[in-house]
């Protein structure tokens, strides 16, 4: 069907997926262009949220409650775990960043190229 | 009310819903703003009394009724400054973030059992979470105003609030467990009846939990003795050092709003919510559930109940503030991590065991987590079955609140 009709239709999973896609892309771009390690971290958070939106959308009782392909509650559960693990990841990543900052006196990820081949 | 508008007023639905929603919002806003005015006045008087002074006496009558109103006007007319070097955008946005946070938390707070902006079935959780957002505005303010005092204040507040969310959450979980629901309305309903039906008196553990909750609540709205964020003796005024005028007053409203909020939460979770100590209504044979006008007035009475309890809580906070000395940051952290958290955890386990041991609690009809759990759900894989017995009447979430369904429930906010 026409691509732009999406805007004319009642809200369905695809709309959520669109939002997720935008967030995901934004996160990736953020990871790519931010030189600040914390910026990269935020990019990661954005990416995770994009994924989360997809999970929620697929598992949502409101959107696809009676649909046969709904993953039902699993979506929410997985989203929950994603959130928790994101928190953990943020803690560790931040710790690493601070360590890097303490050792290199900068948070510029371009300066973190000790592994350069 | 929306029904009333639709059916009798013959308005189209969405206008009716819009009117209702905006009315509710207006009501809540007034609770905060007017509450803030009243509380500021009350605080000044109480502080004065405790310090053996008189406090405001002139403005508006003998007791200085209009003192805080005058202050408000002064603040409105004041020029608000922004230090150069400050991050303009964040500096401007920060107060509104705080205020919106504490304002949005009121959405899920029931004043009587269907006087509620939006009846969320994760109400408690929602309130706590949104309340936690308030700190963000503070941090932004502290950072944006390019002053190290502000920054330190913000840091402290952030550290304190975020860490105090842990024991706070644990304390909140206890009544949630007893009621078997996170829906504030359900929790309140569970405590209907005489005052000894309140969760405060459910068992010794809940009793202790209540006091832990009070401590953590005071800390999480960073009032004295936990007001490290605006420790005027160390940091000039903490995170709002650079603020003045209207923005400053927004911070203040946010603070008083959240004070009132946590007090109301305490009232609902532990002190029976809108149920008075004596079930007058049911004694008179009025069912507050019925949608007719008497029921409406009964709900108004319940609303008054809750207000009273919450106000009492706020006054107690003031009293504590002007009585106790301020803690050091490390002491604050110690209190949270070394004392409140373990005690709360123990209380949680204790209450759970208590519920398992005597499901009736001290008195019949209590401690039955029957809120949202249906029998059908109890036969899990492997025949795992919880020690849950269902309430006599149908769970409130299913039958009793049909006509009181606010339109906002479909739109999610």
């Amino acid at each position: 069907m026409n691509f732009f009709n999406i805007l004319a239709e009642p809200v369905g999973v695809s709309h959520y997926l669109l939002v997720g896609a935008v967030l995901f892309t934004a996160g990736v771009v953020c990871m790519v262009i931010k030189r600040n390690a914390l910026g990269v971290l935020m990019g990661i958070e954005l990416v995770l949220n994009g994924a989360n939106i997809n999970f929620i959308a697929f598992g949502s009782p409101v959107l696809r409650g009676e649909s046969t392909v709904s993953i039902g509650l699993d979506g929410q559960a997985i989203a929950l775990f994603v959130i928790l693990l994101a928190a953990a990841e943020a803690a560790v990543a931040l710790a690493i960043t601070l360590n890097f900052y303490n050792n290199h006196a900068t948070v510029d990820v371009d300066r973190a190229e000790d592994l350069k081949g | 009310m929306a029904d009333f508008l639709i059916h009798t007023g013959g308005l189209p639905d969405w206008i009716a819903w819009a009117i209702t929603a905006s009315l509710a919002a207006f009501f809540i806003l007034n609770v905060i703003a007017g509450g803030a005015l009243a509380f500021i006045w009350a605080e000044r008087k109480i502080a004065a009394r405790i310090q053996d002074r008189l406090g405001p006496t002139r403005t508006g009558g003998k007791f200085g009724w209009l003192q805080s109103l005058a202050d408000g006007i002064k603040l409105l007319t004041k020029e608000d400054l922004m230090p150069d070097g400050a991050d303009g955008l964040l500096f401007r946005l920060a107060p509104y973030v705080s205020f919106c946070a504490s304002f949005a938390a009121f959405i899920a707070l029931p004043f009587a059992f269907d006087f509620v902006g939006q009846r969320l079935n994760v109400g408690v959780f929602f309130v706590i979470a949104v309340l936690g957002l308030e700190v963000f505005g503070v941090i932004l303010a502290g950072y944006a105003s390019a002053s190290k005092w502000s920054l330190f204040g913000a840091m402290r507040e952030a550290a304190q609030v975020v860490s105090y969310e842990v024991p706070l959450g644990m304390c909140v979980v206890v009544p949630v467990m007893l009621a078997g629901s996170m829906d504030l309305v359900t929790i309140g309903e569970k405590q209907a009846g005489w005052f000894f039906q309140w969760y405060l008196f459910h068992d010794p553990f809940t009793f202790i939990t209540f006091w832990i909750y009070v401590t953590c609540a005071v800390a999480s709205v960073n009032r004295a003795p936990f007001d490290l964020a605006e420790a005027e003796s160390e940091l000039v005024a903490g995170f709002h050092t650079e603020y003045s005028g209207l923005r400053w007053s927004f911070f203040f409203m946010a603070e008083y709003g959240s004070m009132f909020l946590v007090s109301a939460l305490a009232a609902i979770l532990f002190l029976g919510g809108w149920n008075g100590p004596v079930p007058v209504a049911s004694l008179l044979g009025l069912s507050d559930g019925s949608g007719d006008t008497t029921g409406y007035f009964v709900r108004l009475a319940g609303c008054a109940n809750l207000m009273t309890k919450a106000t009492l809580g706020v006054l107690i906070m003031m009293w504590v503030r002007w009585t106790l000395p301020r803690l050091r940051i490390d002491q604050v952290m110690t209190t949270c991590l070394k004392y409140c958290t373990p005690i709360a955890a123990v209380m949680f386990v204790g209450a759970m065991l208590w519920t398992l041991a005597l499901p009736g609690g001290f008195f019949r009809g209590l401690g039955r987590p029957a809120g949202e759990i249906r029998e059908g759900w109890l036969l899990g894989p492997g025949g795992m079955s919880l020690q849950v017995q269902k309430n006599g009447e149908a769970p409130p979430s299913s039958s009793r609140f049909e006509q009181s369904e606010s339109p906002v429930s479909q739109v999610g906010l």
Partner: protein
Amino acid sequence: MELEQTLPILLGLAWITPLFSFVAILFFGPRMGTHGKNAASVATAAIVCSFVFSLSALLMWIGVHGMSGGSHGSHHVLLKDSQTVLVAGAAQWNLADHQPSGSEDASEAVHPAHDADAAGVQPEDAHNLHHSPDSSDSHGAGAHVPISYSGDWYTLFKVGSLELTIGWYIDALTLLMFVVVSLIASCIHIYATGYMHDELHEVIDHEVHLVAGGHLHRPGRFSRFFQSLSLFCFSMFGIVIAGNLAMIFIFWELVGICSWFLIGFYYERKTASNAANKAFILNRVGDFGMLIGLMALWGALGTFRFADSVTMSLDDGKPVVAKGLFNLVRPAENDHQLIVPDGMVKASASGEIAGIMIEHATRPRDGESELKSRISQWRSDGLGSWLLIVAGLGIFCGCVGKSAQVPLHVWLPDAMEGPTPVSALVHSATMVAAGVYLVGRLYPILAPEVLLVIAYIGMITLVIAATIAMVATDIKRVLAYSTISQLGYMMLALGVGGWVAGLFHLITHAFFKSLLFLCSGSVIHACHTNDMRRMGGLAKVMPWTAGAMLIGCLAIIGAGIPFVIGFSGYYSKDAILAQSLSFVQNNPSHQILFLAAAAGASLTAFYMFRLWYMTFAGEPRDHHVAEHAHESPLIMVAPLVVLSFFAVVAGWSFSGEGGLTGLLEQARPAGTSEGASHGLLQVSLMIPAEHESHQGAVHRSATLVAFTTAALGLLAATSLYLWKFVSVELLSRMFGPLVIFLSKSWYFDELYSFLCMKPVLLVSSLASGTDRHAIDRFVDGIAWCARRLAVFDDWIDRFVVDGVVNATAHATWNIGLKMRDFQTGKVRQYVMFIVIGTIALFVLASMLWNSTIAG
């Protein structure tokens, strides 16, 4: 608690305790106290425990069955006994079948056994019960059955009819052996604690001369000594308690290996290690014969069990009786007289059986019936009796090896290389006793011909060993040869039918021989030499030892006031002589047996007192030795006292028929107590019943002969070595060659080296020659080819393989250098790569599988 349930427990404990101490010392020995000092206490405690256990077992036995010989009991006693056999057979704890617990198993097993024999399920017992009265008045105590309990602890495995079990066969003999062995072993342990104290610290072995000159310095092996000692006792107990031949064989070999450990204790000494090897190898030679015997028995009879075993059959609760060896060879139907069992008859008549089976191939049942009818006839034809004889001889071969009979006796004198306590243990109670014990245990299945052979072997051994002992100068060697000759006595006694006499002598000899060895040990300990010619006059220095030794000598020569009282040896040796006398009277053609025994008595007296005089009496010949000599410490003297006490009283009988002989009578094999048992092939051979030798005439004359011969020997020794009427040198010069011949111990070693070692060496030199000249050449050739090949291979390796490998490596290296540039170390670029990859993948996938992209 019933006796048949108590005894296995007690004796089993007594048996297993030394094993525990062995294991304990094996693992923690060196850590027990300083230099493993407490290992001695552990081992001693263990052996004393087993002594206590076995003593209490013996006392319980006496409490139930009394001390009087069963053969003279009245008949209802016999009925009880025969039932006891049944019950004991039923009450076996077979751990292999899944009975919940021993006791209830026993209780449920007992009742079926009773009503079984009431219902006459076992015909032999029914027969036994009914016919005992008339059989009794027909000939003496015809139906006498030894009281014995047997059973199994554990079944190792069960293949067809072969069933190896750890079982028990307990009768008075077992109990006596247990008590004696544990008692003597305890004394020896205590003694050894003192004797081996040198091993507690660094030992300088003066008999080992290193190539670099000087003597060997080695750490002490105190704990190791006691560890081997404990294992030794454990194995001996195993032999004694064993309920079947297989188990006996196992522990037989264990004893062998223990003797190897102990004799080779000072293994740095060439002589010691040689002696150990010699003992072990000679025992192996004997055990080969024993294996043959076992195979003959099992192949023909299909069981190793001694006693009948009653097992509940699985389909119906009825007890199933599996006949044991004894009951097979001496069936109760036959009044326990020895007949060739059916199995052996069939085995040796296999040809005929095959014929019968073929002609009745269509109707096998008739074949069976005809077999049954023909068996007795075949037996009367004498088929199978050779099999029985071979079995007996084979097993006796093992005994020859173990208890050092001619021609396998040469290991025993060399075994003196071990520490003296070991010699005492080996020669008194344990190892050499094992052979005699085995002959006594298997007595029921030994055909008269076998017994005759045993008798002759024993006689020859007796004389040869005694003559050698006359001229030996090493004090321990004298004792060793005397041991051999005493063992010869026992074998002789058993061979001429003196079952009780032989085992009685075994026990008494155990006491006084261990006493003698310990005494010699303390002498050696005092003088640091074995050579009697350097001793003399030690009686003044070490009175206790001298006294104990004197008692030992008197006991071994069987001194006593005739018909009144005497040392233990007096009774046993008299019994032997009497039995041989009655045997000779019955078979005049074998006069030599009695004469040799009598002569042996006087020789014994001679060399024993020669030893005593040369050691203790007269003047010290070597002052250097004499002034060093001293009395041994108390811990070594106390066992001497204990043992000498037993050496004196062991033979006394307390009330009428009581005493050791009475107890042994209870264990006498069934059917040996009544009159003549005739040979299978040579019917004229007749072995008299033992109690006939107790008749007045025979016994009296035997006693007199024994006394006179012993007195003569004593007189000769005294006149030669104490009064010195004739100088010994003169005599030895007169009989020079004879003396040399004797002191070379009849050139047995040379004979063996000529007969066995020379051929072996020849063959081996031939083999080595072939090896060196033929095989090595071949191998070298192959090696040469291999080297050539290797050179070529090396070339290929270097130029082809390495070339490829290096090329690959180089290529990889260059690629790596190229790839380096991608590894920028910039996180953001990595992310970018990831995303690009993802997109590429997605596009690729959508192109390949034409998925629903773009609607």
